[in-house]
């Protein structure tokens, strides 16, 4: 069997160069425009730069953490999306479909309403707890059933409706906090700093590592649950691990950035066209592609209507939805 090495490497080179370009563009643009030369100086020779200079402060304390967080969120949501599309063997699946997103959003909204003054980690914690509770409920209902993925999808529909209703009640009770919660729900990266990065970075690394270890199982799950089991996969255990990984990464992302749509659905599809469906290539490429998409969308969000900022979730859906429809039409 001959494999053309270059045809495997080219998409990655494309993604990496594109990613670097987007990163650089994102660092340069904003309310204060920094020249590309200055940005390079600050990035690569920080010891030669005056650390009290406004450009330095803006880039290292405002833009850089925001961009890194955007990258991690986009990457994490894309990985979770790719994993859920495989888990359900359904191209329309994403963390939203199983209800984890809305569950996590409900937890985070509750955290914002009641516990926000208690410190930075309370909202993510509430979000993860709610996400995990949703997941435990899903596993309780669907676990062990022979057609696991059907049950998951149906449970997800019910949970989505239920969690949305509860979130609506929270909004109803929010009173003077209403605006903050609504803005957060729309999805955005404005309230971010390095602390968000340090929370998300290890989670993304662990999630990616677990899924990379599970790539042979993920590939086999595409054959169908029964055929995967007959080929030696411990299907139930694999599905459970994947569900936990999806739930935790999604919940943490959502607690930091609100509900950002379409990244987890769209990016894996585009990346699959580039590198194929083998998860060994799909997952790392999703991390790069999702990050690139998110950083690009966030940069648009903060520059298009400057000094106002459009919620990035609006941008991702605005670009993502038509693009996804185009993708669907093309495939048919």
């Amino acid at each position, binding site marked *: *069997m001959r494999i053309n090495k270059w045809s495997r490497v080219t998409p990655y080179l494309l993604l990496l160069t594109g990613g670097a370009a987007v990163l650089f563009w994102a660092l340069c643009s904003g309310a204060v425009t920094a020249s590309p030369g200055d940005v390079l100086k600050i990035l690569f020779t920080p010891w030669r730069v005056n650390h009290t200079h406004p450009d330095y402060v803006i880039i290292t304390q405002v833009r850089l953490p925001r961009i890194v967080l955007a990258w991690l969120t986009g990457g994490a949501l894309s990985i979770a999306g790719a994993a859920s599309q495989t888990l359900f*063997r359904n191209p329309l699946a994403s963390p939203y479909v199983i209800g984890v997103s809305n569950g996590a959003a409900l937890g985070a909204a509750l955290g914002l309403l009641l516990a926000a003054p208690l410190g930075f980690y309370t909202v993510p914690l509430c979000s993860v707890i709610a996400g995990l509770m949703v997941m435990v409920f899903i596993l309780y209902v669907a676990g062990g059933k022979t057609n696991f993925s059907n049950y998951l999808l149906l449970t997800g529909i019910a949970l989505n409706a239920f969690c949305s209703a509860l979130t609506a009640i929270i909004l109803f009770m929010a009173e003077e906090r209403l605006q903050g919660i609504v803005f957060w729900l729309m999805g955005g990266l404005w309230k971010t700093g390095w602390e968000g990065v340090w929370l998300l970075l290890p989670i993304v690394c662990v999630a990616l590592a677990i899924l990379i*270890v599970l*790539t*042979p199982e993920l*590939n*086999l799950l*595409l*054959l*169908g649950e*029964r*055929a995967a*089991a*007959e*080929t*030696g*996969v*411990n*299907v139930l255990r694999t599905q459970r691990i994947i569900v936990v990984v999806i739930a935790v990464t999604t919940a943490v992302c959502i607690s930091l950035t609100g509900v950002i749509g379409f990244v987890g659905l769209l990016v894996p599809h585009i990346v*699959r066209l580039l590198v*194929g*469906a*083998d998860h*060994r290539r799909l997952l790392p490429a999703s991390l790069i592609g999702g990050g690139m998409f998110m950083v690009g969308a966030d940069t648009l969000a903060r520059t298009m209507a400057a000094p106002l900022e459009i919620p990035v979730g609006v941008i991702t859906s605005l670009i993502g939805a038509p693009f996804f429809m185009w993708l669907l039409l093309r495939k048919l």
Partner: protein
Amino acid sequence: MRLYAENIYFAYSDSKPVIRGVALELRPGTVTGLFGPNGCGKTTLLRCLNATLTPQEGRVMLDNIALTTLSRRQIAARIATLGQDIPAQLPFTVAEVVMLGRYPAWRMFEHENAEDYRIVDSCLQKMELGSLAQRQFDTLSGGEKQLTLLARALAQETPILLLDEPASHLDIAHHLHFLTHLRKVAASGKSVLLVCHDLFATPMFLDRACLLHQGVVVAEGEPAGVLTARNLRHAFDCSIEVSRLTANTISVVLPEANPSATFC
């Protein structure tokens, strides 16, 4: 390696048993055909034999080991199964699909090496798929898909093969080629179970046959002794005549089949 079922009963939850006291043995070096009308429990029996279903009574043994004590991976290293379902979508090339069959041989963190590629190549050749190796699975015809999945099962290189209607989409030439290949597989000491509906070409390639009816084995043994007119009439409830052409070749005819009869 000898796979045998001892007096197994299986019922899906809240319904009456589908398998009622079946004993079946797959001997090394033989091809066994499993026949029977629709819904008689052939597929259920096959799933009991690879432990994706667990019988409520009786046990399935692999040599002296109960199948239930082995992990899915250990089972897959010993028993390859080809189910009836063909995945509607599988975004891999033919060669990648066949490579999936190498999974049971890998440990954690392990993936394909040169040996695996060699095995995949040889399985592709055996199923005459060499020219399709780099084609996308989704673009294949039904028969080609079936051959690809068959090559995947062969790539597991197991001593036991369980095949559930593996030839239902194959044309006559590929069907005969496939049956001939099964004989070669058996000649190398492996045991093969073939669930099928074909009474015309398949019997002459079999060493043993088993006829199932309402979850009970009606007859088991030499194909010519099992696939008799009397047994087949009983199992299929349909007028069937069988004439023996040679010692091991039978020909099934349907004397009362009437194309102009209306079903009402």
